[in-house]
Each structure stands twice: as structure tokens, then as C-alpha cells.
């Protein structure tokens, strides 16, 4: 069935990327963070973090911050990204199911 085939193909590709990402991804700051370091922190990452930290209006603690699971190292990073990938897959399929049901009635 092609419906399932599309999902499985997408999921397999996504999980392969999820497994590789922690090993291949660059740990350099991204474009926005680089600007924060240069323009806000005058070249100093800690200074940038401190200035921005004081401006945070609502503190929110993400359970798997920075795509990692505490104390699990690289394996935790792989696990975190796979959890995120599968969650995105499940939520979007859920929305699809709701839409299909509504269209059916």
C-alpha cells in the first residue's frame, strides 16, 4: 500500500539522519548565535549568554535540552533526535487522520 510506503520511506530516511546527526553535525554556533556572540557579547559567548539570560521573560526548562538526555552522552543525543522525529511523524499523521475524518462526514 503506497500510503504506508511513503510514511515508511520518510521515517527510515529521517531515522538514518537522526542517528548520524549527533556524530556529523557541526558544533559551531549557528548564524543567529554567532551574531549574538559578536554583536551582543562583543565576541564572548559567556557574556552574550549572561546579557540574554537577564532578559528572559519566562523561564522554560526543556526536558531534553540541546537534543540530549542527561547522562547518556552520544547515545542520548541519538535517542533524543529519534524521539523528536517519531513524535513529529505521529503528530502530523494524527492531524491527517482528523482531517480525513472531517472530510469523510
Amino acid at each position, binding site marked *: 500500500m*503506497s*500510503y504506508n510506503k*511513503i*510514511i515508511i*520511506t*520518510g*521515517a527510515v*530516511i*529521517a*531515522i538514518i*539522519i*537522526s542517528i*548520524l*546527526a549527533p556524530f*556529523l*553535525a*557541526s*558544533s*559551531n554556533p*549557528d*548564524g*543567529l548565535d*554567532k*551574531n*549574538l556572540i*559578536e*554583536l*551582543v557579547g562583543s565576541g564572548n559567548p559567556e557574556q552574550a549568554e549572561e546579557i*540574554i*539570560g*537577564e*532578559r*528572559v*521573560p*519566562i*523561564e*522554560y*526548562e*526543556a*526536558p*531534553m*535540552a540541546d*537534543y540530549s538526555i542527561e547522562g547518556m552522552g552520544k547515545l542520548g543525543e541519538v535517542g533524543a*533526535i529519534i*524521539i*523528536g*522525529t*517519531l*513524535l*513529529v*511523524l505521529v*503528530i*502530523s*499523521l494524527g*492531524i*491527517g*487522520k482528523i*482531517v*480525513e475524518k472531517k*472530510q469523510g462526514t
Partner: protein
Amino acid sequence: MHIGDGLIPLSQAVIYWLIALAFIIKSLNWAGKEMDEMKVPMLAALAAGIFAIQAMNIPIPWGTSGHMVGAALAAIILGSPYAAVLLLTLVLVVQGFLFGDGGVTTMGANIVNMGVVGGFVGFYSYNALKNSIGMVSASFAAGWLSIFIAALVCAVEMYFAGTFPLVAGLMFMGLYHAVIGVVGEGLITAIAFKSIMLARPDIVSEKSMARVAA
């Protein structure tokens, strides 16, 4: 270009959230009307793939890195900029709440930049170019332009927020994302688009097909 909490004051962050919500509602309307049994699995597969590839930062010069956004690809394959809004919203909600990638107060701004700006720029630039330079080249250009323009919009928001000076912000956000856009967005968009066209041309939205000269 995920904006974290603290980079935009709450009063402004609320405005971006409201703009984002207006587009999210429109994207749900799009889903209700346009999503069929082929677009549902395609959206899910693309969303999963784009979430994963966003975790893969590619190094660029100046000790910087960047990753694909995926809005152009989603809009082209699914035939609507609202598809990109819906997909990027899902990705950004999971990233923000679970992984602290992008803030919670600033999630609206991130949805506006990557979903709305990325999706609309990607979709309309692709459609403007597909007949003249071909579908694959157009997908490359749309990918590049979508991340570049989104980065400039992000720089302007950072200026309004009092976080970046305007000119330096535009210059460096533009420069970094112009480079990231070539491999990180343009090339991956073109490869993914070509692969999907080869494997299943029937699931690429008809709206995204180039006119074939008679």
C-alpha cells in the same frame, strides 16, 4: 535561526505569536480542504525528515554553522505555502517545548520567519521560476531565497527587539544564511525534490509542475 527566549521582549513576542496564529489557522483550513490520502503521508514523511535534518548543522566559514529549514521543499511538494506553515509549526513546537531549540515566548517569531516567510518566499519564487529555468533549478533557487529572506526578516526583528544593530545584523545574518542557503538549503531541496519526482511524481502537487511546451 531559532530565536531563543530573551532575544525579543514579551510585548513584541506576543505580536509575532498573533501573526503566527493567524497563519496557523489558515494552514489548518488548507489542511481541511486540500489534504488528501496522498498528502497526509507526504506531509508526515516530510515533517519527520525535516525535523531530523534540522538537527544536522553543516559547518560554514567564520566558525559558524547552519541547517536546512525545509519550508520551500514542503511548500513545493505539497503545493501550498500553508503546507510549509503547518509543517514548520509542528517541527518548531516539538523543538521548542521538548528540546529548548528556539524559545517558547519567541516561538511565534520563529513560526513567522521559518514557516510563513520561508514557505511563501519558497513557494512563490519556485512558481515564478519553474517554467523558465526548470523545476529542479527552480527548487534550488527557491530553497536558497527562502532561507536568505527569512534570515533578513529575523535580523529586522532582532533590530526592533533592540538585540542587534540594524545594518550589522542584516549584513551578518544575510551573509551567513546566503552561504548556508547554497548547500544547507538549496542543494538539499533540489536533491530531495528530484528524488521525490523520480520515485513518485504523482504525489508532487500538480500546482508545482512546470508547463510543458506543446
